[in-house]
């Protein structure tokens, strides 16, 4: 396929509205701040911080517009034939890397059981694609694979293979499977180790692929489940409460160039093989070498070849698990940061569709914007040192002192505007949830309101800490430091204050330095800086407190109030497997293979 279809009028209109509004908001913020800064005379630092304000406001406006657009329509399932049985063969790919096999394989067992209840399970195989390097973990994988086979009678349809070398990481792992076994399947559902998808949902996405021969990739919107910590539960609530609206906005703008987030998605195997063979970029990591954030690139390449890439945000029953604390979140974010900044190499790749390039820009900007915010704050602290001295008697012919024009009203208006763009989308999503009765799924009006307000508060408190981690990540990548491929920590995530301090002491130091600098150069700024610097100074306590178990009645989600069938199946399998019945367990648990 090389004929690139035109973008639909509705997608074009949504893109135009969102882009125009964001650009206008950015220009307005730029000019207002320039006027405010120039009140005591225009100097270079005013222009610099106004520029920082321009970029940061564009980014805020873009996010806000995505949410506002998302509130204007509702997701609808496409009309397709759901009566006829599936005619395709589908493989569910589960790439793993140093994961706990009990946790991962119990999800596979649950998904297999869930598929069996649909009556279409015969069309699906599973393939566990291990990139594990640790021999002990690999030995456990093999033994628990045998248990999975035995429990699900899975020989010949649940596969396991371990690569000798993990070239190309996850993308290379999937590519290796397609090269050796891809011709056996029409479609492949790509998962992460912590993914869980309802059988009905897997059948539905396969049907949608069958129904639209131009569809190369269909992405679902995964919900976070099973979070325990305060931080994890807040994120879980936010993805259930806010993300569907942002996703709706994204879906309205996607046209044929939708997103791929690397997992919980289905691909047309031949389209993927024809279009998505990723090159190794010249040079060393972090900018050269294998493409790290391969999903964005694969979506762009499918679209370049004329295939449709689509996010169907109406789909339910797609789940994943998330990090339990800020430090784990920051580790994952470091990898994403490197991957997204690596896309600078691909912005001008030949033949890409304009929207794909813009998606790369968005990904890059999502990390660079932290630098712009920080730069803005620093420039504001330093501005008095660079500005011209105030001249109260500009002329000898006027005996009265002349004070600079007071632009405080302007500054307050600007702050309200910026703050509005930060919180307005979430407030509107909350209002929409109340009006449409969506709060019932979150425990009712009062629990949902308390959760939404608490999430807003927590995200405001953690924003400066996350900004600092992002800024460090950007500088590390720009300095040429490769973050590698750390294994996921999927433990309970609890952190003591000392552990948290070890991970964020530099944020505390920078927070104190910022306050000290402000007290010397511009003490009037200190109250304005406290919402940023106070969380930085208190970050060890905040990180530690947020990593502790959350209250079960706060941040209730629909999946907690009424767990999906596949979640219940998974819990049953996990309970059984962890029950410790030695007769039922593989040899490793009984201690006979612990020398491996």
């Amino acid at each position: 396929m090389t004929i690139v279809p035109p973008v639909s009028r509705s997608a074009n209109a949504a893109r135009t509205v969102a882009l125009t509004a964001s650009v206008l908001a950015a220009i307005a913020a730029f000019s207002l701040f320039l006027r405010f800064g120039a009140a005591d005379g225009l100097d270079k630092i005013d222009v610099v911080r106004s520029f920082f304000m321009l970029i940061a406001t564009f980014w805020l406006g873009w996010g806000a517009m995505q949410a506002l657009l998302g509130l204007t329509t509702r997701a609808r399932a496409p009309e397709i034939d759901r009566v006829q049985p599936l005619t395709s063969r589908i493989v569910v790919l589960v790439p793993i890397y140093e994961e706990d096999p009990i946790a991962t394989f119990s999800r596979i067992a649950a998904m297999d059981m869930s598929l069996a209840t649909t009556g279409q399970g015969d069309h699906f195989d599973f393939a566990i694609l291990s990139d594990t390097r640790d021999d002990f973990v690999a030995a456990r994988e093999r033994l628990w694979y045998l248990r999975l086979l035995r429990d699900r009678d899975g020989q010949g349809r649940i596969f396991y293979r371990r690569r000798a070398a993990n070239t190309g990481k996850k993308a290379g792992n999937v590519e290796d499977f397609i090269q050796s076994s891809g011709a056996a399947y029409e479609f492949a559902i790509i998962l992460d180790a912590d993914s869980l998808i309802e059988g009905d949902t897997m059948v539905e996405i396969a049907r949608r692929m069958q129904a639209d021969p131009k569809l190369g990739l269909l992405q679902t919107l995964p919900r976070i489940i099973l979070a325990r910590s305060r931080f994890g539960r807040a994120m879980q609530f936010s993805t259930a409460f806010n993300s569907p609206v942002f996703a709706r906005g994204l879906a309205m703008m996607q046209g044929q160039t939708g997103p791929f987030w690397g997992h919980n998605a289905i691909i047309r195997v031949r389209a993927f093989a024809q279009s998505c063979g990723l090159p190794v970029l010249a040079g060393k990591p972090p900018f050269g070498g294998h493409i790290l954030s391969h999903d964005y690139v694969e979506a762009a390449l499918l679209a370049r070849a004329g295939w449709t890439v689509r996010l169907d945000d109406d789909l339910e029953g797609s789940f994943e698990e998330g990090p339990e604390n800020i430090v784990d979140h920051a580790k994952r974010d470091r990898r994403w940061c490197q991957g997204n900044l690596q896309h600078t190499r691909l912005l001008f790749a030949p033949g890409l569709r304009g929207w794909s390039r813009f998606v790369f820009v968005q990904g890059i900007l999502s990390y660079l914007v932290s630098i712009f915010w920080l730069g803005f704050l620093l420039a504001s602290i330093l501005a008095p040192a660079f500005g011209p001295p105030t001249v109260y008697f500009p002329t000898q012919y006027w005996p009265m002192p002349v004070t600079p024009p007071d632009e405080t009203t302007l500054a307050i208006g600007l702050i309200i505007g910026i703050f509005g763009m930060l919180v307005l989308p979430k407030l509107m999503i909350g209002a929409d949830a109340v009006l449409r009765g969506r709060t019932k799924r979150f425990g009712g009006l009062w629990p949902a309101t308390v959760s939404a307000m608490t999430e807003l508060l927590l995200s405001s408190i953690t924003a400066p800490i996350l900004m600092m981690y992002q800024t460090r990540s950007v500088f590390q990548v720009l300095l040429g430091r490769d973050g590698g491929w750390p294994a996921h920590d999927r433990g309970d995530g609890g952190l003591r204050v000392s552990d948290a301090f070890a991970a964020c002491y530099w944020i505390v130091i920078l927070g104190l330095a910022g306050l000290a600098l402000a007290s010397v150069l511009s003490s009037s700024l200190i109250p304005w800086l406290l919402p940023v610097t106070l969380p930085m100074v208190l970050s060890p306590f905040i990180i530690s407190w947020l990593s502790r178990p959350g209250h079960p009645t706060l941040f209730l989600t629909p999946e907690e109030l009424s767990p999906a069938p596949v979640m219940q199946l998974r819990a049953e399998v996990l309970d059984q497997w962890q029950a410790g019945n030695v007769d039922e367990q593989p040899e490793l648990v009984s201690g006979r293979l612990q020398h491996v």
Partner: protein
Amino acid sequence: MSGQDFNIERMIAVIGAPPAAPLVMMRQQLEREKDTALHGLLLRLLGAFSPKAGQ
């Protein structure tokens, strides 16, 4: 690794093997030959939106 474990590994490799059905992954061209490299923190930052920004 003991002989027993080695046998388990071989056994799993046989029973766990996905079907042999090769498919060629077409390698894609993403870089242009005339792209130039930028070295150093400042140039990388300034050239964040340039091809080969960080090589």
